[in-house]
C-alpha cells in the first residue's frame, strides 16, 4: 500500500516515474521496461498515417500499461503553434480515449525549447475544452504561474535539460525557486535526465515526479535501467519527505566527544 500517492485530477498514482515509450530496441524490451519501471503513467504520440509503422511497439506498450493499470498520456510532439497543438490534442483524445494531454509546443529547433507564448495560448484553450493539461515548459517562474493560474493546468512539467540530452538538471536553482514559490503546484521534471542520480536529485528538492524516455530506451540494458530509475525516484522522494539537513561551511563533529581530550594529556 502506497502511503504517498501522487494525486493528479483526482487520480492517485502509486508511482512518481512517468515513462516514455519511444526508441526502445524492440517492442518486447519496451513492454519489459514498463513493467520494471513500476510506472503508472506512460506517454504516447500521434503521427501521420503516411509515415512508417512501429513494428507493433504501440500494441505491446498499451498491453503492458493496461496490465499495470497505468494511465495513458498522449503528447503533442512536433507542434509549432497553439493551433496545431489544440488540433492534435483533440485527435489524441479521440484516439486514446483520455482527456489527459502532454502539451508540447516547440519554439526552437535546436534545443526543442518550448514556446512559452504558444504554450500558454494552447493550454488555455485546451483547459476550456475539458482537457487536463500537462504542459512541457521551461522553468520560468512567471510562465509557470500563468500556466497554473491563468490557463488552469493541472501540473507543470519544466524541462530538466533539452529533450534526449542526458544532461540532468541544467538549472537546479530555478527548479528550487519554483518549488519554493509554487508550494502547492504539482511539479514534474520532464526531459533531459540521463542518470538515476539526477532523478533522485529532482525528487530530493521536492519535485513531485519525473518523466523520461531516452535515458531508459537508449541504455545498454533498458529494463535494468528502468528498475534503476524506479529505485532512485523512490529514494529521492523518501529523502524529501525525511528532510535533508542544511549544508554547513565547516565540519560538525558527529561523534559526541567534544571537550574531552582523551588520548594526550596528564595521564600520558
Amino acid at each position, binding site marked *: 500500500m502506497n502511503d504517498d500517492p501522487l494525486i493528479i485530477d483526482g487520480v492517485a498514482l502509486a508511482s512518481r516515474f512517468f515513462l516514455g515509450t519511444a526508441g526502445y530496441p524492440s517492442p518486447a524490451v519496451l513492454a519489459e521496461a514498463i513493467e520494471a519501471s513500476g510506472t503508472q503513467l506512460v506517454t504516447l504520440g500521434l503521427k501521420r498515417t503516411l509515415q512508417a509503422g512501429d513494428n507493433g511497439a504501440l500494441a505491446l506498450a498499451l498491453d503492458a500499461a493496461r496490465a499495470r493499470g497505468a494511465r495513458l498520456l*498522449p503528447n503533442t510532439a512536433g507542434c509549432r503553434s497553439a493551433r496545431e497543438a489544440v488540433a492534435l490534442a483533440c*485527435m489524441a483524445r479521440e484516439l486514446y480515449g483520455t482527456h489527459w494531454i502532454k502539451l508540447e509546443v516547440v519554439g526552437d529547433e535546436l534545443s526543442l525549447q518550448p514556446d512559452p507564448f504558444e504554450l500558454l495560448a494552447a493550454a488555455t484553450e485546451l483547459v476550456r475544452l475539458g482537457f487536463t493539461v500537462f504542459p512541457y515548459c521551461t522553468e520560468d517562474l512567471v510562465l509557470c504561474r500563468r500556466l497554473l493560474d491563468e490557463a488552469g493546468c493541472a501540473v507543470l512539467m519544466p524541462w530538466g535539460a533539452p529533450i534526449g540530452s542526458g544532461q540532468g538538471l541544467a538549472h537546479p536553482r530555478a527548479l528550487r525557486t519554483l518549488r519554493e514559490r509554487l508550494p502547492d503546484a504539482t511539479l514534474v521534471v520532464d526531459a533531459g535526465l540521463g542518470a538515476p542520480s539526477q532523478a533522485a536529485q529532482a525528487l530530493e528538492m521536492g519535485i513531485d515526479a519525473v518523466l523520461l524516455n531516452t535515458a531508459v530506451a537508449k541504455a545498454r540494458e533498458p529494463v535494468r535501467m528502468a528498475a534503476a530509475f524506479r529505485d532512485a525516484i523512490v529514494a529521492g522522494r523518501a529523502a524529501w519527505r525525511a528532510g535533508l539537513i542544511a549544508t554547513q561551511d565547516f565540519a560538525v563533529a558527529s561523534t559526541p566527544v567534544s571537550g574531552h581530550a582523551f588520548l594526550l594529556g596528564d595521564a600520558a
Partner: protein
Amino acid sequence: MMIEIRLDDQARQLPAGTTLAALLESLDRPAASVATALNGSFIPRERRAATVLGAGDQVLLFKPIVGG
C-alpha cells in the same frame, strides 16, 4: 464531376459531394483507427459523415504511435 483534394500530401480525385466518412471508407480505414484533420482543423468522428469535401481541401489522417 470530379474534384481534386490532397490526402496526406498526395493529390486525389474524388466525385464531387464525397464526404470525409466516404473517403475513409474508400480507403478501407476503420472509422476508429484514425483521427482526421481538414485544412488544419480537427474533425471529430461524429462529424465526418456531414463533412463534404471541396476542391483543394487538405485531409490529414493521424494514428497512435509510441512517444515520449
